């Protein structure tokens, strides 16, 4: 994993100096992260990077996990689904199972941190152990339209925290505690985002039999209805009437997801008459995703619903023009016509794609603006800075803090 100083050529010396300036003010404080898993999933991915960086900056940071059995995680998965407004039945038994396991964790887990940083709903009930120390609840999911029963249940715990953190303004409900906006981030030195030599990009295109003879439109996403792959094909077909181009739809394996397999089949069916549509079921391979993004003329993210949609920042970081839906955290990443194009429909996506393919200078400018927007706002260094300012804010209630 990269060291902090390796980010200086990307973000500048002053950004890294600022990180050290804030870290100095946190000397002597112990930060304790608590979540439910050390590997797999977005939260573990973030913590696996954040914890070593904070330690490198001299902030005493620890990471603990709660314990839970299959039943408990079955219930928390159900909570996750209904908070995302997916239909599922939640019963009193589910709440009881959640509380039984939570009680065991309350008894067994030592919450020694000066600042206890709890991630997502699974460990949320630990806050009942709160003493003189400070507690933060970090919500990584979209709760803009939640199941009210589950939300009210969680809210009883949330209001006991000192502060809550959300990823997008639309996720923030009215609460009697302070709430902060901290967006997720991408790591410019990870395999998914690092600069690639042209031969690596070409090799990946050869592997998937994608010729470079025409402009390439790409959407990188799981085969999931909420990512609307069929809508992407429709938009491409509208564009194709006027501009000869290729479409790449590439996403991870859907082996454990029956609905995903069905969506993949429907996409293949819709694409079968057009040899310029490439539907790729990719194994987990960040370099290949990186190469496909870099080989693209325009990147699409036509989701119907999105948590944050970090694939948009990944594309913008590669200075690619992006056409994306105006949902979830996407409008934070794209200001329409400044750093990309936002759309609300298949027709809107097709129109924006035609505009960008017909105006390469404009497309290039949007991509360049997008890259700078990501450099200023969506890199891991900004994320680190905001986490440390969040820790400081717990000791200062004012709007202007002299530290």
């Amino acid at each position, binding site marked *: 994993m990269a060291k902090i100083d390796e980010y200086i050529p990307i973000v500048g010396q002053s950004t890294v100096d600022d990180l050290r300036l804030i870290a100095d003010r946190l000397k002597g404080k112990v930060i304790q992260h608590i979540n439910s898993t050390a590997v797999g999933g977005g939260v573990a991915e973030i913590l696996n990077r954040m914890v070593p960086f904070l330690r490198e900056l001299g902030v005493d940071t620890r990471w603990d996990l709660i314990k839970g059995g299959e039943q408990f995680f079955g219930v928390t998965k159900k909570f996750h689904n209904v908070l995302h407004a997916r239909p599922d039945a939640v019963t009193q038994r589910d709440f009881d199972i959640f509380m039984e396991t939570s009680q065991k964790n309350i008894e067994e887990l030592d919450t020694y941190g000066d600042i206890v940083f709890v991630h997502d709903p699974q460990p949320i009930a630990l806050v009942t152990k709160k003493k003189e120390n400070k507690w933060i609840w970090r919500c990584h999911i979209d709760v803009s339209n939640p199941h009210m029963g589950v939300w009210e249940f969680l809210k009883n715990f949330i209001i006991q925290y000192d502060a809550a953190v959300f990823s997008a303004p639309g996720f923030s409900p009215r609460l009697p505690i302070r709430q902060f906006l*901290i967006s997720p981030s991408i790591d410019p030195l990870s395999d998914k985002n690092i600069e690639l030599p042209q031969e690596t990009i070409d090799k990946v295109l050869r592997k998937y039999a994608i010729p470079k003879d025409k402009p390439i439109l790409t959407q990188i996403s799981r085969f999931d209805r909420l990512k609307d792959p069929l809508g992407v094909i429709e938009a491409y077909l509208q564009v194709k009437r006027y501009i000869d181009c290729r479409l790449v739809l590439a996403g991870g394996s859907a082996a454990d997801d029956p609905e995903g397999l069905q969506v993949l089949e429907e996409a293949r069916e819709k694409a079968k008459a057009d040899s310029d549509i490439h539907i790729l079921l990719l194994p987990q391979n960040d370099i290949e995703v990186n190469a496909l993004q870099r080989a693209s003329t325009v990147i699409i993210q036509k989701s119907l619903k999105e948590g944050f949609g970090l694939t948009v920042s990944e594309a913008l970081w590669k200075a690619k023009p992006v056409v994306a839906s105006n949902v979830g955290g996407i409008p934070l990443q794209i*200001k329409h016509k*400044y750093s990309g194009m936002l759309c609300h429909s298949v027709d809107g996506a097709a129109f924006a794609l035609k505009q960008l393919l017909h105006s390469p200078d404009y497309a290039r400018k949007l991509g360049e603006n997008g890259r700078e927007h990501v450099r200023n706002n969506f890199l891991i260094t900004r994320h680190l800075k905001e986490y440390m*300012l969040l820790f400081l804010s717990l000791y200062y209630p004012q709007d*202007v803090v002299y*530290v």
Partner: protein
Amino acid sequence: MAELYKAKEPFRFFTRLHLTELTGLRASILSQFLSLIKEVGGASIYHHTHRFLQQHQYLSPEPPNDFAYWVTEALGEDELGEKLASIDTMHFSNIRSLREKIIMVIEEYMEGNPLSKLKFSRKNEEFYFMKTVSFVFPTPYSAGDLKEFAECLHKITIESIYYHVFEARLRLEKKTNDFSRWMEDSLGDKALAVKIARLDPYTHTLEDLRKALIAMVKARLES
């Protein structure tokens, strides 16, 4: 070459980092938007009129405030958007008077355009009120005369320039920017102080602002 005067007090450079706090307040129609603009704290008005300066440093010209952007993009009220975008922030010495101006512009527009009251933003395109929490840190840089000041301007971060030019004047209500105040009070150089105070920082990117400040100080040193 101008004689180099020692300042009565050295200029100590500070920097400012910020965090965004959510309020949970949102508006989807103009009347609701207006009543929340009247209700929210000054830190919210400051946030929505200054956020673009730091988040979109590379864009010039740029949408100068979130209010203008939202009424244009989410409600399709281009004329109101233009009126809000062209409010001369430099004209106001505190957030209170800036807020009053914003309210007046919206009220006048609604009176002249009653149909604007019927427009709704789409779901997910509501205006979300937020506020800026600023953390002010001392930096190792200080200047005892104009030459040292020019050297520091090259080294400090754009956040430091932002703090002394924007935040000090409007948010901390110091009437003018910190640089002009020091030049007048500590260096006795009223002419340069006035020249810098006349600069409209809202029409520059932060890097361009740095260049403009350096050019003014250099010209003074060489005069």
